[in-house]
């Protein structure tokens, strides 16, 4: 069990990382990573949804008729996303306004459906829950890393606090979508071309 847990986390975080290995969840990676604050809320929302939808789908896996399993999965995922949306509106109103439609779009994040189909539908609840956490964390650290660089270079701030002084010429491109493409490509290159190659896993 301990070995399995380790493998789940190694896969989610590195070997089978949803963003830079499977290239899933790219829409939100490009869209929300120009602000660290928005990114953290987004990844927290996704972590909650992927972990709990994996758990629920796994608990119901023997009862879900196979021919409507994707309908059932989407229903479960959408319900958890609506919970995130309601909680943000009630308790984190400002961030809810800033994220706007992106919270609802967690439903369409391929990572969640991907983990439901690839893992939760055929595995017991606890490993499925951990798999959701591992994939969510794998998504989280990639997005937060990209957001730190984009916000710092693009606005001179981190978490909306001024870090670089007036001397810093803001790289406007960094807060635009094109900056996200460059950052994501760099991230993939560093991870696959440098980190994994050094470890002999490329």
């Amino acid at each position, binding site marked *: 069990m301990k070995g399995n847990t380790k493998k789940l986390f190694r896969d989610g975080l590195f070997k089978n990382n949803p963003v830079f290995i499977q290239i899933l969840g790219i829409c939100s990676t490009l*869209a*929300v990573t*120009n*602000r660290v604050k*928005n990114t953290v809320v987004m990844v927290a929302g996704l972590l909650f949804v992927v972990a709990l939808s994996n758990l629920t789908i796994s608990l*119901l896996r*023997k*009862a*879900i*008729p*196979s*021919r*409507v399993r994707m*309908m*059932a999965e989407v*229903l*479960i995922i959408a*319900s958890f996303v*609506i*919970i995130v949306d*309601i*909680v943000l*509106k*009630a*308790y984190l*109103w400002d961030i809810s*306004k*800033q*994220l*706007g*439609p*992106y919270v609802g779009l967690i439903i369409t994040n391929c990572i969640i459906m991907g983990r439901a189909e690839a893992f939760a539908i055929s595995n017991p609840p606890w490993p499925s829950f951990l798999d959701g956490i591992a994939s969510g964390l794998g998504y989280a650290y990639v997005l937060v890393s990209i957001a730190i660089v984009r916000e710092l270079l*693009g606005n001179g701030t981190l978490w909306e606090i001024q870090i670089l002084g007036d001397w810093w010429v*803001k790289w*406007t491109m960094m*807060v*635009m979508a094109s900056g996200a493409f460059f950052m994501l490509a760099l991230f993939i290159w560093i991870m696959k071309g440098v980190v994994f190659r050094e470890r002999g896993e490329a």
Partner: protein
Amino acid sequence: MPEKKGAWGKSLYTIVFMTFLTALFITVLSLLFLKTRPRIRVNESYDFKSAVLHAAGEETGRSGPEALIAHYDSSVEEKKLPEGKGLYYKVLRRDGSVSYVFPFQGPGLWGEIEGVLGYNGDLTEITGFDILKQNETPGLGGRITEAWFKSQFKGKVGPFTALVTSEEGRDSVNSFQAVTGATSTSAAVQSILNDLIRSSIEMLRTVPEEER
């Protein structure tokens, strides 16, 4: 999946299962929604009331939602412009002066931009500007909700003839600093504000002060 007898049994099971699952999740979501609805309503009304007071030049930062809503209820009066040209809000400020706040809305880059613009008692100077609703690109056009953007309108008169791209030009009376990388959104704000100034505010200027 539990063992089932035939095609009819399978179909019936599928329908019953999906109906049950849907009903279960709808019930949970409805209960959560009902539980949080008062809080969401307070947030929504707080947003509007805070924006009106902010546009009127009142300090809103330190007061909690309840205190702010109480201040709004005791100091703001909703009024109608002549000829059915819309609403405005007369705000009696803590220092005894009066401000007039005008709601505005218009097309942004991706969707409607809604907000409020406040003027002093003799309609010669802007007291504040706030955004209530926008669907602009987060991190770009969405930055029109940030304090640095909203605060630059205070003390100006309008209409705005130009957008400037540097901080040096932001103090000019007839222009404001655009959001870098979001020229379309900034131009949309300029156009919406100019429309409001040329219609509602011009109209209120024609109304004698004691009747405003």
